[in-house]
């Protein structure tokens, strides 16, 4: 009797174990499929873009990257003005955003009293939550008119006549243009860069910081000579992440850049970027060559942000390696 029940219980238990093993394997495989799906998705994006961009690359060859024409009427397209606009607006954004983000990170980690730290970081991060189309509307209807009326004329008059640099600040004060786009991009990427900087600054061991203070360093010397060298790789990684954002940003730029396919020296000119061209023309594009050229622009943008991201990851990894623990 006892032997009978025991074997029944054993049978029961082993059946139970079998069932859980099957469920385990199923669960594990479902999660694996989901993870592989992410990989497949990115590969699919690359393949689809490449296939659809191929007619344009095939037709225009290397000229697609070096030519300046963008002429839908004659079905002649090339990417130089868009690539140029993308790179220049992002460069302006970085020139403004990096020092500002550094200042904010410095303020939050070293200067602000404890009660002010969280509110300031959250407020700055809210800048990242505002949709880019709002930046665009504000830029076009509020910022650009004021900028064009009060600030630009002054800059054109006073800096526009300098040798070398002056050429960058000439032309009619329209308010909109490459510089305005870069400035708005700067505001948009400040929260990304400053939050990475803040995080890596707080990774600096307290001992390092305190021993620097102990030998009589000022706050600035501690930050500039101790904190910054220690976190250099992480800071660069944060800058790269911000740069990636700026390169791909679409709506804000589309509103304020003026959307013209020309190449000029002045930053106050209207211009275009890869993403603004796509936003403006993709739905209206007629004919395979036109659409294909636009997809080719998208592919180029994807590859540019890919390279920037890879650099950022590499730098942040180096930072993590020195830290000695994976982040």
């Amino acid at each position, binding site marked *: 009797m006892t032997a009978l029940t025991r074997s029944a219980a054993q049978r029961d238990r082993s059946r139970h174990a079998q069932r*859980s093993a099957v*469920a385990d394997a*199923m*669960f*594990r495989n479902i*999660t*694996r499929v*989901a*993870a592989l799906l*992410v*990989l497949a*998705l*990115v590969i*699919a*994006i690359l393949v689809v*873009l490449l296939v659809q961009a191929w007619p344009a690359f095939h037709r225009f060859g290397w000229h697609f990257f070096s030519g300046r024409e963008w002429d839908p009427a004659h079905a002649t397209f090339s990417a130089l003005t868009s690539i140029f606009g993308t790179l220049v607006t992002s460069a302006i954004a970085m020139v403004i955003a990096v*020092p*500002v*983000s550094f*200042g*904010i990170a*410095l*303020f*939050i980690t*070293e200067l602000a009293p404890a009660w002010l730290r969280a509110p*300031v970081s959250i*407020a*700055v*991060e809210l*800048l990242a*939550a*505002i*949709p*880019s*189309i*709002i930046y*665009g*509307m*504000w830029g076009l209807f*509020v910022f650009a008119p004021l900028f064009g009326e009060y600030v630009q004329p002054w800059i054109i008059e006073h800096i526009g006549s300098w040798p070398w640099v002056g050429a960058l600040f000439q032309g009619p004060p329209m308010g909109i243009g490459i510089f305005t786009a870069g400035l708005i991009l700067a*505001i948009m990427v*400040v*929260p990304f860069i400053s939050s990475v900087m803040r995080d890596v600054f707080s990774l600096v061991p307290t001992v390092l910081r305190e021993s620097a203070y102990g030998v009589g360093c*000022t*706050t*600035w010397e501690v930050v*500039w000579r101790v904190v910054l060298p220690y976190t250099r790789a992480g800071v660069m990684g944060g800058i790269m992440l911000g740069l990636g954002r700026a390169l*791909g940003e679409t*709506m804000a730029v589309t*509103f304020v850049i003026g959307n013209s396919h020309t190449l000029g020296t002045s930053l106050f000119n209207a211009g275009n970027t890869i*993403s603004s061209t*796509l936003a403006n023309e*993709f739905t209206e594009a007629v004919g395979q060559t036109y659409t294909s050229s*636009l*997809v080719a622009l*998208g592919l180029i*943008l*994807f590859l540019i942000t890919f390279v920037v*991201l890879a650099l950022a*990851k590499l730098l942040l990894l180096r930072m993590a390696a020195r830290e000695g623990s994976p982040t």
Partner: protein
Amino acid sequence: MNGASARYMRRRVVNWVSLSMSVLGTLFGLFWLVWLLWTLVARGVRWLSPELFTQSTPPPLAPGGIANAIVGSILITALGVIVGTPIGILAATWLAEFSRRSRLAAVIRFVNDILLSAPSIVIGVFIYGVVVARFGHFSGWAGGLALAIIMLPVVLRTTEDMLKLVPDQMREAAAAVGAPRWRVTVMVVYRAALGGIITGVLLGVARISGETAPLLFTALNNQFWSTDMNRPIANLPVMIFQFAMSPYDNWQHLAWAAALLITLAILALSLFARLVIRSRSFVK
């Protein structure tokens, strides 16, 4: 002595100047936030009205609301969440629970970061290529799928981070009392990380509900009331874009009202998500 004190003075001045610049930088950042929000309130509040929520977008120069755009936005955002969230959570589970250190996991993590930083307009182009071009028309489905692709990496990243924070002792304790692996994951690990996972989803929703670029050539827009996901569907971001750029006064007013609403909703959502994270870290 004189030289030393001069150098001391110089160091103090440098310190003072640079720290002032740091404060100025912070004020510079906050200045734009205040200006942006002020603009929205100043230009948007005037046009808020009950009709906004009851009527569809009007033809130029006629009265109307944005009800169709609100509903359309909710529909495609919901589709994005429903498709993006489970895949993101499951993929994160594989990375955090089943293959933390494998080579493939490292590759998928990297690829996910690529997806996370991919320009959203490129995602739009991709969905246009595989969905819109294939079926021959713009549709709500295409818009929702584009949003799902943007949502997925956000959820994956935060979920994986949160799962990794769950101490291994909890997994071991559950396994020791005989729980199979999947129950350990679902009933112990998920439950412990729930707050963090929800935060990730909320941040994802905040991110996709303001996205305009990927909807421009997927969901497009629709001036009329429609809940048919198989056709172009109205949505707030694209509606704001088209109406703001239009020459008609009433369309611009609707655009500002919609801009105020969507920004308030997204700010509330991301503040709420941060609070969830904050209260969670307290528990630990």
